[in-house]
């Protein structure tokens, strides 16, 4: 049931509305502002992903980011993730296009990691709101942590997991 989570949320909203109406009304406003933010980023990102999928040949992506792309592939995946915008859930459709183009699993995990927590505009904002000591400490740790997490995930993945994920990527972005 694809909409299970959505309907659960509707039930939650109704319950909150019965219990504390003002919280539900406030939530409507907040949701609308979230929807606006979502529409600012998600549609163009998906269009760019569609274009990437159609125009960039598999061999090109594989050469730059595939198995054996080495340190250059790592840096490139990291930079690609860090330059992206938008919430974490945008990273997965992007990762699917990468997987379809034979990007290595390690590089896909580096990309997801960088997307989640190292973003250039967010870094500047973090510096401004929480101070340079906070922002720089977190950046340095994140670079190491993202590589480590990607390496562990890549090591733990079994051949059948890899097949399943690649197949799923093919199916999801037809």
């Amino acid at each position: 049931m694809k909409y299970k989570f959505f309907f659960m949320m509707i039930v939650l909203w109704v319950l909150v509305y019965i219990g504390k109406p003002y919280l539900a009304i406030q939530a409507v406003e907040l949701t609308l502002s979230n929807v606006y933010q979502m529409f600012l980023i998600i549609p163009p990102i998906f269009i760019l992903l569609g274009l990437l999928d159609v125009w960039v040949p598999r061999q090109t992506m594989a050469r730059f980011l595939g198995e054996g792309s080495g340190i250059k592939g790592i840096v490139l995946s990291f930079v690609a993730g860090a330059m992206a915008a938008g919430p974490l859930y945008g990273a997965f459709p992007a990762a699917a296009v990468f997987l379809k183009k034979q990007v290595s699993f390690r590089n896909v995990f580096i990309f997801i990691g960088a997307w989640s927590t190292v973003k250039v505009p967010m870094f500047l904002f973090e510096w401004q709101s929480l101070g340079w000591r906070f922002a720089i400490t977190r950046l340095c740790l994140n670079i190491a942590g993202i590589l480590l997490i990607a390496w562990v995930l890549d090591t733990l993945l079994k051949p059948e997991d890899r097949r399943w994920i690649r197949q799923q990527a093919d199916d999801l972005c037809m």
Partner: protein
Amino acid sequence: MEYVFYIAAFLFLGISFTKDKGKTMQALGKAWTTFRTILPQLLGILLFTGMVLSITNSEVISRIIGQQSGWLGTLGAAVIGSLTLIPGFVALPMCALLLRNGAGYMQIGAFVSTLMMVGVVTFPMEKLYLGTKTAAIRNGLAFLFSLLVAVIIGWVHR
């Protein structure tokens, strides 16, 4: 600056269209398919996030992770960060406010790190792409890593 992605998308769409109409339509079709794939989860996520933001203001959060909340507060902050999905431009000023009101750096470090890296609400979507096992391991590792980040952030601010 806000529209930079739209500008880029339209620019590349234009170039693509002059080169090959068919391929451009194909790309738009793929974009639409991707959007439709995540739409059910996305709607749930938007409703959940709106409600969580409505219920938890900085007062509620600072009660949990406020002054002297120590290790338990750090763990609490990490859990709250994992459960919530707040855009960074809302979360970071809120954290700055919390710090001024006496929250500890270690707790804020845990919150910021899990907020960005761990996604319980987005888990159904992540599962769709990576499978349950891989998604669970990724989130678990990110959670543990965030605790380490919190300790070190606390240490550099001691």
